[in-house]
């Protein structure tokens, strides 16, 4: 048997990221100024983004696929890293956890996500998922001296371990059924042998749905999210609410559309109740939250519900709408978390909704930004949030799920109440105490990027939509 070196082109960005993340881990030993490490991370991820452009192709005998779909998701991960690093620099100083490992962990988690997006095989998918999950567990517990942060990491870890087990279980069953873990081979086998209502296939799809639902925080597998989001450092919460969720959707789309594309009717029946529960529980429980991080956690659960509609549609347009929504969601959610981080100063946690009371009077700029993010999360035009929802709803209606969209818009209208509550506190109440803001150039830049993206994509969504449609052309 002759050994043939596989083409490394498609996997080059990941190789580069692995090396750079290790370099940054080492550099931490010598560099005292942690802001330099932050800068290095941004430069590294920028370099990875540059490599992304020339990485199209399939390698390792189909184990690894770099296509438009994975590239779009990788861009979301890269944007997520850049924004997270920008909002972290000052914040981890304030939290007194200014260690260099923070940045390399973020990069390793992102590496895991990139592997997931490109996985052409269930085993590669599992490896990526574990790398992402393990790094994120550590990040969630990064504030060592804070009991809540510890709790967050512990819960996230324990429940995440269950999810991994489900995933392995599902993989094992599908291997037993089809004799392969290659996604396209599974698809071919199912079509060839007409396995449409095979109980083992159904069970393994249910297990996959459960495992991925953990990652995207869909009900009833969302239990970890509120505690993990609340306890984790806010910058990590921002990171977790976008990156792993996007990665979860990437593999959800890849596996369900790729491997199980021919039995869409079957898995739609699994995902529809999950989507309805997710929107319902997320939006309704968010109504009664007093902590903004918890509220955003439930909001993030609810958004997963809307995005699921795009997957359920099971069409190319549906996938394109998932990509579009995920990108938009990344901008608006990190933007909102950036404002939350601004309120965190030494000796003041600033994560209660009542801390926002009268913010428009004391800090009109911060309040105006939060206003825009809140309206965008509600989905009111002319913000990007509307365009995201519009596209998802449109593709779901096109696929014949108009009734499901009616459910979604009703929940979406309910969500207006808790988003507007923040606006109400900021604009319609008098300030109780003077809230100081901790600002930094990085945070300012992150806010400028996110708010510009939210408004520009809201008014001119064409470029993003077209890009997403091209990205899913392979499906």
């Amino acid at each position: 048997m002759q050994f043939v070196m596989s083409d490394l082109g498609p996997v080059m960005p990941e190789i580069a990221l692995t090396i750079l993340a290790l370099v940054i881990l080492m550099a931490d030993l010598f560099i005292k100024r942690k802001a330099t490490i932050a800068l290095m991370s941004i430069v590294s991820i920028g370099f990875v983004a540059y490599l992304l452009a020339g990485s199209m192709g399939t390698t390792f005998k189909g184990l690894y696929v770099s296509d438009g779909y994975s590239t779009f998701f990788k861009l979301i991960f890269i944007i997520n890293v850049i924004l997270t690093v920008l909002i972290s620099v000052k914040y981890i100083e304030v939290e007194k956890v200014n260690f260099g490992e923070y940045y390399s962990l973020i990069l390793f988690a992102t590496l895991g996500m990139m592997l997931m997006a490109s996985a052409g095989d269930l085993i590669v998918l599992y490896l990526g998922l574990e790398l992402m999950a393990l790094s994120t567990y550590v990040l969630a517990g990064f504030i060592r001296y804070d009991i809540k942060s510890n709790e967050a990491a512990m819960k996230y870890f324990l429940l995440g371990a269950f999810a991994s087990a489900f995933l392995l279980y599902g993989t094992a069953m599908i291997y037993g059924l089809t004799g392969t873990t290659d996604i396209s081979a599974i698809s071919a086998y199912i079509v060839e042998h007409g396995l449409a209502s095979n109980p083992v296939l159904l069970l393994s799809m249910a297990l996959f749905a459960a495992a991925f639902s953990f990652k995207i925080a869909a009900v009833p597998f969302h239990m970890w999210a509120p505690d993990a989001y609340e306890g984790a450092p806010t910058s990590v919460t921002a990171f977790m609410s976008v990156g792993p969720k996007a990665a979860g959707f990437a593999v959800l789309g890849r596996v369900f559309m790729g491997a199980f594309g021919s039995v869409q009717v079957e898995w739609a029946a699994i995902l529809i109740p999950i989507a309805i529960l997710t929107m319902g529980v997320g939006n309704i429980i968010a109504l009664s939250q007093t902590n903004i991080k918890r509220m955003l956690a439930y909001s993030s659960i609810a958004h997963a519900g809307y995005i699921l509609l795009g997957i359920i549609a099971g069409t190319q347009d549906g996938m394109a709408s998932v990509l579009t929504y995920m990108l938009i969601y990344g901008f608006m959610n990190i933007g909102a978390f950036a404002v939350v981080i601004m309120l965190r100063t030494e000796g003041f946690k600033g994560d209660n909704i009542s801390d926002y009371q009268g913010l428009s009077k004391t800090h009109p700029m911060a309040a105006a930004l939060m206003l825009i993010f809140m309206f965008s999360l509600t989905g009111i035009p002319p913000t990007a949030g509307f365009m995201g929802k519009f596209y998802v709803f449109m593709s779901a209606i096109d696929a014949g799920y108009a009734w499901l969209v009616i459910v979604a818009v009703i929940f979406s209208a309910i969500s207006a109440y808790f988003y507007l509550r923040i606006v109400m506190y900021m604009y319609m109440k008098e300030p109780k105490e003077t809230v100081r803001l901790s600002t930094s150039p990085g945070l300012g830049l992150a806010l400028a990027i996110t708010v510009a993206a939210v408004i520009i994509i809201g008014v001119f969504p064409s470029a993003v939509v077209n890009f997403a449609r091209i990205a899913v052309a392979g499906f």
Partner: protein
Amino acid sequence: MEQAMTNSVGFPILSALIFLPIAGAALILLINRGKEDLIKWVSLGISIITFLVSLLLLTNFDKTTHLMQFTEKHAWIPAWNVNYSVGLDGISVLFVLLSTLITILCILISWNSIKIKLKEFFISLLFLEGAMIGVFCSLDFILFYIFWEAMLIPMYLLIGVWGGPNRIYAAVKFFLYTLVGSVLMLVGIIVLYFYSGRTFDILELMTQSYPFQMQLLLFWAFFAAFAVKVPMFPVHTWLPDAHTEAPTAGSVVLAAVLIKMGAYGFLRFSLPILPEASMAMTPVMIGLSVIAIIYGGLICLAQTDLKRLIAYSSVSHMGFVTLGIFTLNTQGMEGGILQMINHGIVTGALFLSVGAIYDRTHTRQIADYGGVASVMPIYAAMFLIFTFASIGLPATNGFVGEFLIILGAFAASQLAGVLAATGIIIGAGYMLWLYQRVFFMETNPKVSGLSDLDAREIVTLLPMVILIFWIGVYPDAFLDYMRASVEHLLERVHTGSGQAIATAGDVMELLK
């Protein structure tokens, strides 16, 4: 239905009208918040320029055609076939003018009464103006929806930030009611989009025919959005709260323009796109309208709060408007549209007047007033004119509109005509009683020594007085604008609906 694209003015006038105020809002964003006078003057300047530009619409409007005029069309989101497409016809043109005029008056009346967050106030008001004009001009359903929803943001802030004591409750209620209605319409829009071969173009959607069952569902989806906005009975309950708690400018914009959009929506979308369903649903719509007229009027009699009384009178008056529209005959529909303008003028003027006196006394309770006529004679005279117009006394605009509507209603259903006419009597009752309690009787110590209207306030109210008599004496000057479009719309509704006429006719027989 061929729609030639014409634009008789040499520049994209509608885009200018939409984006002038929005650019103005952006300009104010850049002004230092300390320079309050500058902010006020810039807003006033922008709104006056916008108004002057909008006057060109009147002079250049071709009254002989139902086709869209001043049109512009640019590709916007090609992937979804969404276009930036604007244009005006006889139904919408007057509303653009109403919006631009009302904004000036709102800025004038708020000159001294807004004390906090002045900058945000004027930004909201101008942004709102741009969105309102956009709603009336849009010829693309998504463009329309975006303006329609975008209006919620400034309006929510106007009520919630600068409103009365119970403002937060009112603002949230307003927002949620409107949003729930709107999102259901959005689902309807998307369903229509796929059925019609992926187009959001309103003019194109009007030319197609849809299965009756689907029309019915869509009719109720649109109804959810438009009826909440009008507001029709039984979804009117947000209105008294919002009107009462909003600052004067907010109440005026709400009453004069925003709630017109609901009725406008029926005219622009429900009737021409879903003619059969509209036809079949006329008994229901007429019934709801009549209930609104009488129920709204009766509730007015029990009000102790000035603004709340005028708010409920809006429910009653808008009942006339929807009644007129759903009579589906020329008199009724022309009367309905004219009455929308009239109601905008009269109720706008009433809210402006209440705002003027509220600035002095800071109370809205009717019981706190009495004998104002002897303290503020000019104010009393103007308020009397508005009262008469609201009742619909001949020679005022209210008479023309309501007369036409009742005429139309009798043709459609005698019962509805009779019941609507009693609404006018109730209207006379509560308005005259209100006038008596506020302006006559013993002078309440709380109002003694108040100064009469100053020049700014007189300038604010004077255009309304002029319009009241102008429309009252020579309504053709305004009816001429809408005639061709109304005829065309009715033709579309009547020819577009075959079997529905029969069912509707049966129900009508029963009503008679």
